[in-house]
Each structure stands twice: as C-alpha cells, then as structure tokens.
C-alpha cells in the first residue's frame, strides 16, 4: 500500500443493478469489511469523488445521468465497474432496455466480476483502482497539468 499517498473518496452510483451489488458495496463500509481503514470514504457528491463505483448496466434512461456524473468528477479519476451487469450487461443484456456494460458510455479502469460481487472482490477492485489513480496523477503532474484540461464543469452545487 506504499503508493497510497492520500485518502480516496468513492462515489457509488446504481445504474440498473438489481441491488445485490449495491448492498455489497455498502457492506464494504460496515464494521466487518471496513474500507475506511484504507482511508476510503463514501461521498454523495461527484465533485468530491476520486473513484466512481458503478453497479448495473447502462439503460436508455440513465446513460446521460452516468455521463453527467462522470464529467462532473475532477481529474484524475478512475471508474470501477462492480458486478457482471456493469461489466457486460450480465443476465440482463438481452433485455430491451439494457444497452450494455458501463464501458459503452464511459471508460472503465477496473472490472469486478460476480453476481452479486462479493465485498472482498469489490475491495480488491477499489484497491487496484487506487494504483491506477496514482498512476494517472503522476502522469498529470509530468504533463504539467495539461491533461487536466477539457473536463467540462457540471454546474455549481
């Protein structure tokens, strides 16, 4: 964990999940799994978040919502797709309203499999995402902050 130099904040959004993965994401916060020991805090505000944890696939109504949340997050940012629905659409990929996995709308850095994904694998996925986050941050610093440009603001909170 030597690369973890600061406390990453996580934003959780339920795209079109059945709730199974959502409650496992929340279970990560509970005393048994306790992700706060890594300094990870769950936030509800996209502008505070470094890691976007998404459960469930993209459907016709939420594609703009997901894109909007992603664009509001400041750089550097990483996206973790939790559960098989978020990875590929899962058991619902044949449904008429489901477009597919999260990566058909926004770039995904870490895929966590499972139906429902277990808390252990969700934590593992987020910790892997933190390494990606550190990497992105270093690249931004090397580029003199130039890579940061181009992230449109989503309006004041």
């Amino acid at each position, binding site marked *: 964990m030597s690369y973890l130099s600061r406390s990453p904040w996580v934003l959780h959004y339920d795209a079109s999940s059945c709730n199974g993965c959502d409650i496992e994401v929340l279970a990560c916060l509970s005393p048994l799994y306790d992700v706060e020991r890594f300094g990870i805090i769950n936030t509800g505000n996209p502008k505070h978040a470094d890691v976007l944890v998404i459960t469930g696939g993209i459907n016709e109504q939420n594609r703009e*919502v997901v894109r909007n949340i992603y664009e509001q997050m400041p750089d550097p940012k990483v996206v973790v797709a939790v559960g098989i629905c978020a990875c590929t659409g899962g058991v619902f990929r044949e449904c008429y309203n489901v477009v597919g996995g999260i990566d058909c709308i926004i770039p995904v850095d870490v895929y966590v499999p499972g139906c429902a994904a277990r808390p252990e694998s969700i934590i593992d996925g987020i910790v892997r995402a933190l390494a990606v986050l550190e990497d992105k941050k270093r690249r931004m610093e090397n580029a003199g902050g130039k890579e940061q440009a181009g992230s449109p603001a989503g309006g004041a909170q």
Partner: protein
Amino acid sequence: MPRRIVVPFGPQHPVLPEPIHLDLVLKDEHVEEALPSIGYIHRGLETLVTRREYPEYVYIAERTCGICSFIHGMTYCQAVEKLVDCSVPERALFLRTIWSEYSRLHSHLLWLGLFADALGFENLFMASWRLRESVLDVLEETTGGRVIQGSCKVGGVRRDIPGETLERMRSGLDTIEREAGEIADVFLRDDSIISRTRGIGVLSREDAYALGAVGPTARASGVGIDLRKTGYAAYGRLSFSPVVETAGDCHARCIVRVKEIFTSIDLIRQAIAKIPDGPVEEKPKKNPEGDYFARSEQPRGELVHYVKGDGSRHLVRSRIRTPTLTNLPSLVRMLKGCNLADVPVIVLSIDPCIGCAER
C-alpha cells in the same frame, strides 16, 4: 410573499442508495407537491421469460431485486408449481419459510441501518449492519450465496439443511435476538430518533387503504394486512400475529420493522422445531399451462407474480407487481406538506427498493 420553486431530488443524491427522481414543488421550505419520475433502473426483465425455459427463469426472477431475492424466486416458483401440477414436499415448504424469514431479517436490519444513516446516526448504521452480517453468514452457509441465494427451484428447493446445522442456527438466533434487542431499544426510545420521526410524514388509515399501501407502510397506519396469514409455504402451520401500529408516521413505520425482526426470529424457531423429515423436491410432471397469480409477503409488502404458459417449455408472460411501486402513491401523499429537510427520512421510511419497483 413566499415564492414557489421546484427543487429536483435525485436521481443521484447523497441519501439515496438507488436512483429515483422527485420534483419537489416548494413554497419556502414547505413541500407543496412531490412528483416522482422513475425508469432509471428499468431493465425489462419480464420479457426474458419468453427466452428462457421456465426452470431457468428462476434465476432471473431472483435478480428482480438483490435484497429480497429469495422471496422473488420463491413466489415465481409458487406460481409455476400451480401450472405444472407439482405438490412441493413439506420439508421444502419449511425450508422456504426459514430462508424467507432470514431474508426478512437481513432486509429489515439493512433498512434500519440506512434509516439511521439518513438521520445522521452513523454509529447505529454500523451496529445494524454488523448484526446483519451474522444473518448473511447463515444464508451463505446454508445456500452458498450472501445476497443472491439461488436455492429455490420449481418443485422444491435445491439443497437441504442438515439437522446439526439447524440446531446451530437455533442457538445462533439467541445471539441475534439479544443483539437486536440492544439496537431495538435505541430505535424505539432514543430522543433524537423520536424527535426526527414522530409526527413526520403521517399517512392516515383511510389514505393507506385508499392508496393501496402494502406491507409495513400499511401496517404502521393501522391496516393489518400481512400476506403470510394466507398460509403459503409453511406459514399456515406457524402461529404469529402481524405487527400493527396506528400512528402512521415515520416512527410507527420504524417500530413495525423493529418488532417484525422479533416476529421473524420467532417464526424461524417455530419452523426449526416443526420441520418434518423427507424429500426436498418433486419433479414437475408437465409443461406449464394456464395462468396463475401467486402472492407473498416480501419485507416491503405484498408481492405478486403472475405467470401464463401455453404448454411449452417457455412461459408466455410474466408480470411482477412489487411493493415499492404500490407504495409510491402513499409516499407522494406523505411528502405533501412536509419540510424539505424531512424529505430524505420520509422517502426512506417506505423502504424504497427501486430495483424491484422498476424491474
């Protein structure tokens, strides 16, 4: 002169674990009207029934909702069993009852935690979720899954629970009951919880009945409907009385769920004591033909699964009526006239499960 403004609430909001959108029409801080709009998690899983064979659709039915997954699977099976002329063995019925009640325990403890969190009582959230883990441990040990169990099948259940495990579950219930008692005390008596919830979001008995409220939302307003009293699975052979409160406010809805935890523990004890020996599944004799409505009591209220078959391996239609969708009109009524700051608590008080509601 107060101004009327419309404040959007959701779909992504700090207090909501799931997306729902409400347009709140405000006059200063007072909510004059709440207009819900849904569809952010709609998948359209009912249509999959034509693409999966009827025994395989159990997996899809379970994934209607990850919180009450077992009860969804069981209710679908109950409906199909009527179409395939299959009488479920007694032991399987008792096992279904036991798993249903463990699902209710974990769902209610989950809700109590989220409710405490909405009130800003994070310590209580942690306490409720810590206790919930011991319920999930039992579900994982007996079915193999924490939240999606996959243990129900058409004609019975997929696996048996051995006698010594049942014995261990019975003694585990004592610990759960003791720890639930400590949490319950806070929810029932704590001043800060009472001041945030008493008299907030009142739903009268007449409104609850007229708007078709179900489950704890209805029972907190004095409408004593509980589908378990119809005696599906093994409930007909167990004795219990539905928890009914009359105040109809957020605290009454909280009290109903707290007390139901103890009802569930008692029901599991009775079921373990009465469970007969025997097989746990029976093979279906024919393909499903005809149609049937199966009803059951989910942690959030009445659940209806409608299925229609034409004698082939694929069903023609499945229709699911979920309690959260049924409770939305009641929620709109509760929000009328409340303060903006109470909106999160009132929304959570119906235990919204949007995954179910939108399917």
